[in-house]
């Protein structure tokens, strides 16, 4: 009888231990090698609950509301900066992150622009926003000398009119698309002046009739299946589409190019919400991710560059040697970054975006 009670207590204790050792991660969709998740559970014994999102805006709403229940989230630089200002994150405890020494100073100096001193976040991946094309179809419609790496392809109505036939997707991300448009017309892409931002309207409305959809994740499969032929998208996503098409062997050839005019460079940062239920496990997860081999496995899978210097020796040639992923010095020069909008300017940007999407 006594033994029985003991067993019960032990089971109860185990059950509590299991539920306490749980880490909830909220990351972008199609953004990790799923085998890494299993490896994390095996190595640490911590249960990993992994959810995905595809818009910074959605993540920010959850962060600002509080009580999201997540231990690790992955906002992009500008959003991270706003959320730090709003007090949504807790400073990292560096003593729990021995792998922090593996990080790459070149990237850290850039992310410090959003997170001074990198106190709240570590870099997960970084990349550029550019253009994914189905080379065969685009050349068929626009000729051999189609401007595959220029904004002309997607912002010049003449080209778009022809491309509409085979399908064009734009990102549903105003903070990427409006700076891009401003760059195209020669304005400062990081302008916070509502009058300058308003100039993007005319340009985008001119090509609006030819855009099939605004979506931030569907284009991966749509490009790979040949449903669409052009997408403004994030570097690694387009490269994933390229590989899926190659695997399917369906005759679709996808290429990614940063804009010749200059692409936006962004950084996805892992951070721990201030009200994370299990910050200790969150630190364990961050440390696991910063392990060079793990980080390399993630990059090899998703085709994004990471901010981990030590991981570079484990990267496959396809990743480290591809200038679309790890750009050379000259291209790096050409990339621009943006800063977060103030609430009143944010309203102008969102309103403009609603108008472009729905015509009202």
């Amino acid at each position, binding site marked *: 009888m006594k033994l029985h009670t003991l067993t019960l207590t032990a089971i109860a204790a185990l059950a509590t231990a299991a539920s306490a050792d749980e880490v909830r991660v909220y990351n972008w969709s199609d953004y990790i090698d799923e085998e890494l998740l299993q490896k994390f559970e095996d190595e640490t014994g911590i249960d990993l609950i992994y959810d995905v999102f595809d*818009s910074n*805006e*959605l993540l*920010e*709403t959850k*962060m*600002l*509301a*509080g009580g999201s229940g997540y231990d690790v989230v992955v906002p992009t630089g500008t959003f991270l900066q*706003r959320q730090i*200002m*709003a*007090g*949504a994150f807790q400073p990292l405890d560096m003593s729990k992150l021995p792998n922090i020494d593996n990080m790459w100073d070149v990237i850290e100096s850039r992310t410090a622009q959003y997170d001074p001193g990198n106190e709240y976040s570590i870099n997960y991946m970084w990349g550029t926003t550019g253009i994914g094309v189905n080379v065969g179809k685009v050349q068929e419609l626009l000729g051999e000398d189609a401007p595959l790496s220029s904004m002309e392809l997607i912002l010049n109505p003449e080209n778009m009119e022809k491309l509409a036939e085979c399908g064009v997707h734009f990102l549903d991300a105003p903070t990427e698309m409006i700076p891009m448009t401003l760059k195209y017309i020669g304005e400062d892409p990081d302008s916070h002046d509502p009058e300058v931002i308003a100039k993007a309207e005319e340009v985008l409305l001119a090509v609006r009739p030819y855009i099939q959809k*605004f979506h931030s994740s569907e284009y991966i499969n749509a490009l790979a299946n040949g449903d669409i032929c052009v997408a403004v998208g994030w570097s690694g996503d387009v490269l994933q589409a390229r590989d899926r098409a190659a695997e399917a062997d369906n005759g679709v050839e996808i290429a990614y190019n940063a804009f010749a005019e200059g692409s936006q460079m962004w950084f996805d940062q892992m951070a721990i919400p201030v009200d994370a239920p299990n910050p200790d496990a969150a630190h364990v997860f961050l440390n696991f991710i910063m392990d060079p081999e793990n980080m390399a496995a993630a990059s090899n899978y998703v085709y994004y560059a990471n901010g981990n210097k030590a991981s570079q020796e484990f990267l496959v040639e396809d990743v480290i040697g591809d200038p679309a992923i790890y750009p050379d010095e000259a291209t790096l020069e050409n990339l621009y970054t943006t800063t977060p909008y103030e*609430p009143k300017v*944010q*309203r102008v940007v*969102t*309103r403009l*975006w*609603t*108008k472009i*999407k*729905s*015509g*009202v």
Partner: protein
Amino acid sequence: MRRFVLIAVPFLWLLALFLIPFGIVLKISLSDVALARPPYVPQFSWDEGIRAFLSQLDFENFAFIGAGAIVVTVVAIALLAAVAFPVYGLVFRRFFGGGLKALSIRSLIAAVVSVVAGILAVVIVFAVISFFFPSVVSLLEVDDYLYFQAYLSSLKIAAISTALTLLVGYPMAYGMARSPNSWRPTLMMLVILPFWTSFLIRVYAWRGILSQEGYLNQVLLWLGVIGEPLTILNTNTAVYIGVVYTYLPFMILPIYAALEKLDVSLIEAAEDLGCSRSSAFWLVTIPLSRPGIVAGCFLVFIPTLGEFVIPSLLGGSGTLMIGKVLWEEFFNNRDWPVASAVAIILLLILIVPIVLFQRNQQRQAEAGG
């Protein structure tokens, strides 16, 4: 004491489930957006006191979404309806001897007269009000017509969907009520059965049916009815289909309840007295099932007005509905105060049909009792 307790129960219920949430939303709608958690100011704090807190609240967000113009429009529509319906009845009783009402040239005349009377009433009331209170006119100035258009478009979509649901639902309810007694439980089951699956999944399934490569297009292409796939998904048509499908039981059940109670001998009597079958239907069946029709229409119209799931899954980027605008304010703009103001106005608009629905139910209960 006992009476007090008895009365207190429903009031506490109302307080806890309606007034307190409403108060919170109202408070947020009077706040200002800010970069904070939660993202608005002022937050209430006991140190500063309630007066300092209240002084920071204002109606800026309501002005921004053009709440004045929206409310005025809704009041005008309600006033028009309130005048037009009694006038319609009056015209019939006075000038047409109260006879055949439905679908005749006389009903057309009565309809025109009543609508003109309604419009006149609206114009006169607003002329008088703006004469005595000129400041009312400034309410009509709107910075951004997005919200105004979204409310109007929601009203339009809700009205059209309700009419379509009635068109589809009435024959079904009629068929059920006329079927043999032994069949009725089965037919009833068939209407209710879809509720056993999640609403979200059922709406999602329509995406598979309506898309470019969907089943509907495949079948139509195979039959040779169409030469090219129809674009239905991501248009308002898909929204109408979704609403009719989802809310059909809400239309069928009250109409069926009304038709089932209908005394068949009344129709026989009408036919004995020389009515054709169709005029017996229009003159006897329809008027007697009116409470069911009204109840069904409100049960469809009210939830459709604020619908979010159907337009976001089936509608396109051109489908403008207030539920979607609300979501975008909340999630894309992270502007809780404006989102709350939109929600408050939506609630105010919904009060009109809800009150009318209650009155209909009450009248029906009285008639039944």
